[in-house]
């Protein structure tokens, strides 16, 4: 009923509208999201992220709601498809494995409830993707937190969902366990063409996975747009954060083994990044923090900074008495610079000013 209803040529969209009054706050959203890639639902705790995800899954039933996912209508004023009839995969904050079943039986739970003709991922493929082969006969009580969450992700994938919903899947894990799961999630994203809604309040997870960003605040959508654009919007609280950063999508073009530097070409220029070798053509995602970008009116060759790119100022916003935030455009790619107000005035930084952005550090996200 899902793919069949999507007319050829129709654009894949995820539409969700809800108006729900909770004690203390109202969830009021009207979202029209791309039907492919990873959309991050980002916001502080209490902003309604989890409520929204549960509503989309049908776990909470609300009278005023509309959900349509890539052509399949799941909810409107008259119709409500219960969660077990929605082609979703759901990964909860706590893994929620069935304590009475071993890992293999947990994985098979959803898989065996799908008609074989609708299965788009093989049991072995999910086991391989999440590295579960050595754990198959264990009971959930004998798994670590990270292992449990990997099983939960594989279990959800094995229902061949049309939409994968992840509710802060890493929130209950410590730093080490998080680092252990992140590569698996990245692998899932790379391997499967599966739209995901990813609830998170951790900017690093968002920067790493998301293609589209929805910013929630007090039950409302503050912003919704492509990740790169939205991260660089000066009117949003994201940009004024100490850790504010932009994400740059690029392609590996060269590697200099003598200095272990990777040359990454992006729309607007090339950046050199200390990194291990990657084959040319590899898609790579870079992160540049606003506080690691400084500005100069002329190109300085006599500096230790490797990366200098010509940029045009688009917008300047005063953060506090000491700091200002500058939104730059490097070709079509947005960049943020956090500088002192005094420097901004001394350099005469205002919209349309052309200058050089000097980048102190570039991090490789994935």
């Amino acid at each position, binding site marked *: 009923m899902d793919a069949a209803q999507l007319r050829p040529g129709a654009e894949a969209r995820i539409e969700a509208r809800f108006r729900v009054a909770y004690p203390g706050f109202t969830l009021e959203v009207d979202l029209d999201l791309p039907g492919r890639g990873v959309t991050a639902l980002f916001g502080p705790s209490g902003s309604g992220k989890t409520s929204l995800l549960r509503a989309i899954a049908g776990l909470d039933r609300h009278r005023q709601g509309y959900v349509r996912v890539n052509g399949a209508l799941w909810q409107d004023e008259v119709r409500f498809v*219960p*969660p*077990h009839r929605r082609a*979703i995969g*759901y990964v909860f904050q706590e893994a929620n494995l*069935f304590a009475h079943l071993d890992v293999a039986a947990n994985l098979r739970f959803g898989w065996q409830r799908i008609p074989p003709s609708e299965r788009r991922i093989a049991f072995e493929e999910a086991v391989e993707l999440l590295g579960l082969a050595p754990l198959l006969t264990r009971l959930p009580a004998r798994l670590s937190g990270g292992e449990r969450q990997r099983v939960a992700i594989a279990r959800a994938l094995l229902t061949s969902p049309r939409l994968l919903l992840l509710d802060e899947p890493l929130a209950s894990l410590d730093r080490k366990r998080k680092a252990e799961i992140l590569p698996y999630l990245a692998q899932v994203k790379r391997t499967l063409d599966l739209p995901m809604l990813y609830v998170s309040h951790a900017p690093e997870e968002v920067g790493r996975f998301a293609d589209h960003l929805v910013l929630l605040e007090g039950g409302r959508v503050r912003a919704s747009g492509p990740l790169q654009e939205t991260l660089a919007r000066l009117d949003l609280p994201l940009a004024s954060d100490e850790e504010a950063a932009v994400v740059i999508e690029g392609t590996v073009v060269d590697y200099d083994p003598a200095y272990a530097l990777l040359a990454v070409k992006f729309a607007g220029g090339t950046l050199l990044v200390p990194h291990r070798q990657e084959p040319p053509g590899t898609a790579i995602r870079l992160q540049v923090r606003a506080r690691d970008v400084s500005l100069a009116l002329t190109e300085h060759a006599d500096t230790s900074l490797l990366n200098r790119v010509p940029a045009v100022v688009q917008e300047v916003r005063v953060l506090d008495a000491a700091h200002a935030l500058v939104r730059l455009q490097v070709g079509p790619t947005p960049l943020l610079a956090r500088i002192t107000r005094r420097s901004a005035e001394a350099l005469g930084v205002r919209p349309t000013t052309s200058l050089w952005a000097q980048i102190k550090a570039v991090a490789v996200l994935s």
Partner: protein
Amino acid sequence: MTLTAEDWQAIRLTLALATTTTALLLVLATPLAWWLARTRSPWKGPVAALVALPLVLPPTVLGFYLLVLLGPAGPVGKLTQALGLGILPFTFSGLVVASVLASLPFAVQPLQQAFAALGEAPLEAAATLRAGPWDRFIHVVLPLARSGFLTAAVLSFAHTIGEFGVVLMMGGNIPGRTKVVSVQIYDHVQAFAYPQAHALAAVMLGLSFAVLLVLYGRGTASAGR
């Protein structure tokens, strides 16, 4: 000291009563306990109190009301007569009805606790894995609440074996039809047949202990695993 034919009859009747009662209770108590564990209805309190009444009421009070209700002049008695079922007091069926009510809290409360301890989480996980409501109950709730079911069954069985007051009020003392072991022992004592009473009482003691051992012995066995 050996058991008489009448003693054996009482033992058979008691086991039949306890088995029937336990089976019926598991069927009746499961939906009731499920509802109590999950409802937010204002009726939850009154219903829970009603279910718990047999724990505190003197069995004679429960037996007396049942006798009145189910007797020839009682509303339920009139109904059973109209349906051609006759009247229940002083029959085996009457004993079953009385035992089910007397042991209701022993079945409902462990099940309710087991269901409440389960929480929403595994059910929601099952729903997102394409399991419908019955599927969830059979493949998630039943296995996860199995110790609750075992407790409910053992306590219902043991409590029915040990019931005296309600049975005496409702069933009286008809050998082979309503005379259970506890009543038989009482009769032996009334007749000063102490050795007979001893023999039967020892059987009851052993049986009750064995039944409860199923429940409590299991805890240590699994803890040692």
